[in-house]
C-alpha cells in the first residue's frame, strides 16, 4: 500500500489520466459543436485516425511537434469534408456517410502506415515540456499537471474558449439554433448552411487535433486502428454532456481515470487481464448510458438536413 501512495506513483497516475483524457476531450468538444449545429458525425473515428496519421507523418518529416499538430488539424478538416459536402450541402444520409468516413479512414491510414513504416518502425520521442514557474514546483501535482507540453495548454485553452463562445456569443447562439430549430435561424436572417458548414469545419479541426494529440503525445507513435473506438466514445460523451463543453471536459477526465486505473492496479499488485483493462472504458460508458439514459438529450434537428420551406 505504501507504494500506491508514493508521490512518484501518484504523479505518473495523474499524468496518465490527463494523457488519456485529452484526445477524447478534443474529439468530444469537436463532436459537440457539430451536434449542436445539427450534424451528427459518426465518422469521427475515421477523422481522428486521419488526423493522427497526418500528425505522425508530419512530425517525423519536419521534426517539429507543432507542425505535426497543424497537420493533424488540417487532416481532420479534410476528413470532415465528405460530411460537409455530402451532408450539409447536399443533405444526404448522415449515418451512411459517417460510417463510410470511418471505414475509409481506418483502411487508408492502416494501408499507408503498413506500406511506409513497417520495415523501419518509427517513434517520435518526447515533445518539449513547458514547466510553469512556481506551480510546477508543487509536489505531486506540479510535475504531472503543470509540467505538460505546450500542446496540452493550447488544447485546454481552445476548449475553454469554445465553451465560453458556445454559451455566450452570437456565434454560439446561431450554432445552437441551427441544431435546435433551423427554420428560426433562417427566419432571423442567418444562414443554416453556412452556420453548419463552419461548425463542421471547426469540428473536423478539433477531432483532427484530438487524433494528433493521441499519436504525438498519448502513444508517441502511430499504429493501425490506433483509436480503437475512441471516436465512438466521444460521441457517447457528447450525448451525455448535452452540449455543455465544460461537462465534456470533466467526463473525459472520468474516461481517462477509467483507462489509467487498470495499469495502476497492476503496479500495486492486482493482476488485471489486459482484456478487462481494454473493456473498462466501454463498460463505464454503457453503465453511464444505462444510468443517465433519460437525460441524454440531443438537439431536435440533429441528423436532419435543412431544406428551406420544408416542414
Amino acid at each position, binding site marked *: 500500500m505504501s507504494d500506491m501512495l508514493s508521490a512518484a506513483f501518484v504523479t505518473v497516475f495523474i499524468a496518465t489520466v490527463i494523457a488519456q483524457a485529452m484526445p477524447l476531450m478534443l474529439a468530444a468538444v469537436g463532436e459537440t459543436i457539430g451536434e449542436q449545429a445539427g450534424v451528427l458525425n459518426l465518422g469521427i473515428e475515421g477523422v481522428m485516425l486521419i488526423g493522427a496519421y497526418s500528425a505522425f507523418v508530419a512530425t517525423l518529416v519536419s521534426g517539429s511537434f507543432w507542425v505535426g499538430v497543424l497537420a493533424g488539424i488540417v487532416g481532420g478538416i479534410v476528413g470532415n469534408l465528405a460530411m460537409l459536402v455530402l451532408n450539409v450541402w447536399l443533405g444526404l444520409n448522415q449515418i451512411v456517410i459517417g460510417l463510410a468516413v470511418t*471505414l475509409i479512414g481506418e*483502411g487508408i491510414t492502416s494501408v499507408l502506415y503498413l506500406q511506409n513504416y513497417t520495415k523501419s518502425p518509427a517513434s517520435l520521442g518526447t515533445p518539449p515540456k513547458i514547466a510553469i514557474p512556481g506551480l510546477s514546483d508543487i509536489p505531486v501535482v506540479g510535475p504531472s499537471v503543470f509540467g505538460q507540453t505546450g500542446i496540452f495548454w493550447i488544447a485546454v485553452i481552445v476548449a475553454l474558449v469554445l465553451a465560453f463562445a458556445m454559451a455566450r456569443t452570437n456565434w454560439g447562439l446561431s450554432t445552437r439554433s441551427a441544431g435546435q430549430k433551423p427554420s428560426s435561424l433562417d427566419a432571423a436572417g442567418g444562414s443554416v448552411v453556412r452556420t453548419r458548414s463552419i461548425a463542421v469545419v471547426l469540428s473536423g479541426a478539433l477531432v483532427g487535433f484530438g487524433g494528433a494529440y493521441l499519436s504525438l503525445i498519448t502513444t508517441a507513435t502511430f499504429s493501425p486502428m490506433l483509436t480503437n473506438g475512441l471516436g*465512438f466514445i466521444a460521441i457517447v460523451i457528447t450525448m451525455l454532456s448535452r452540449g455543455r463543453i465544460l461537462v465534456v471536459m470533466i467526463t473525459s477526465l472520468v474516461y481517462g481515470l477509467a483507462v489509467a486505473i487498470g495499469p495502476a492496479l497492476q503496479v500495486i499488485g492486482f493482476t488485471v487481464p489486459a482484456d478487462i483493462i481494454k473493456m473498462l472504458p466501454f*463498460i463505464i460508458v*454503457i453503465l453511464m448510458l444505462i444510468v443517465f*439514459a433519460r437525460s441524454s438529450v440531443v438537439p431536435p434537428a440533429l441528423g436532419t438536413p435543412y431544406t428551406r420551406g420544408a416542414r
Partner: protein
Amino acid sequence: MNTETSAARRFAEGFIRAVVPVLLALIVSAFVMMAIGASPLEFFAGVWKYGITGNNWQRSLVLMAPLVIVAVGLIVAFRGQLWNLGYNGQYLLGAVVASGLGPILFDVMPAFLATIVVFIVAVLAGAVWSLIPAILKARYGTNEIITSLVMSFIAVGVVNLLIKGIFKDPGVTTPQTAVIPDDELLPYIPGTQIHIGFVIAIVLAVVAQFVLSRTSFGLRVDIFGASPKAARHVGLNSTWMVILLFALSSGLIAFAGSIDILGQFTYQRADWDPRYGDAVMPLVFLARFRPVAAIPFVAFYAVLATGGTLAAQQAGLNVDFLLVIVGLILLFMTITEYIGDRRKLGQSYVPAGLRRTVLKPFLGSSVASSSAGTSATESRSASERTSV
C-alpha cells in the same frame, strides 16, 4: 407526373442504382492504388485468379455462407429502421459459442445433436446480448447506433477473455480454442468442398425474403420502420418490436459466427475479428434491404475478398484496403441515390435538360477503378489452420 412505372423500368433503375456505386468505387479505388504505388491491374487480375479460377470459386462460396446470414440479420433490423451496428461483437459471440462450447458438447453427444445445441445457444447468446441496446432504445430512445457499437467493443473483450480463459486449448501455448475434428464439422455438399452452411444461408435468405415481403409480420416491420408513430396507431407495440427485431438481427449474426466456426475455421484465436459486418453493411443498402437481392452483391464481395487477400499482397497492398473500397461504395451509394431521387421526383425547378447538364460534372467526377479483398477465408485443410 407519371408515378406508374413498368416493372421492367423499375428493375432497370434499381439495377443501375445498385451497380453504378460499386463500379465507381472500384474505379476510384484503382486511382487510390496507383496513388500509393500499387498496381490496380495486378490486383484485379489477382482477384480473378484467386477468387474464381480453379477450385477457388468454392472458397468464395464458403465465405458467402456467413456473409449472407449476416446480411439477413442486418436487413431484419434495418427494415425496421433500427441501426444495429454491434455486428462485430455479435458475430464473435456466436463464433466463441461454437469454438468453446462445441468441443465440450461433441464429447458427450452425437455430432448432429451437438451442432443443433451449439446453433441454438449461439442464437440465444446473440439475442440476449442485444437486449441492452434494444431496451435502452425502446424505453428511453437512446441512440441504438452508439449503444450497439459500445456493446460490440465489450463483446470483443468478453470473447477474448473466454478464449484466454475457460475455452483455451491447454495443449497449445497461444491463446486459442481446441480444434474441432473434421468428422464433427458441418458436412460438405457432395462432390465439393463447400459445407452445408452455404445451403442454410441461401435458404435463410429466401425464407427471410418471403417473411418480410409476403406475411403480416413483414408488413408490420415495414410500417414500424416507416413510422413508429403510425405503427402505434395501428396497434403495434413498439417496445416489443424494437426488442424482437434487435434479438432476431443479433441472433442471426451470432448464428453466422457459429456456422463459420463449424463449417470452415474449426477453432478460434484471441483477437481474431474478420469484421464481416463492415463489408456486408453497404451491400444490404445496395440490395434495398431485400435478402434475396443481397445474394449477388455478397457473391461479388466474396470473390473480391477471397481473391483479394493474396492479390493485395502481390500488388503490394495491405488487406485493410478492402475497407477503403467498402467505404467508397457507401459514399457513391448516397450520391447515386441523391441523383436518382432528384431526377425521379423532379424536386428541382431546373428544366430536365439543363438539370442533366448541371449534374454531369457530378456524375463524371467520379472516375476510376477498383480494388481489393480481405478476410480470412481458409479451407479447412490442416496446413492453413494457422491463419485464423
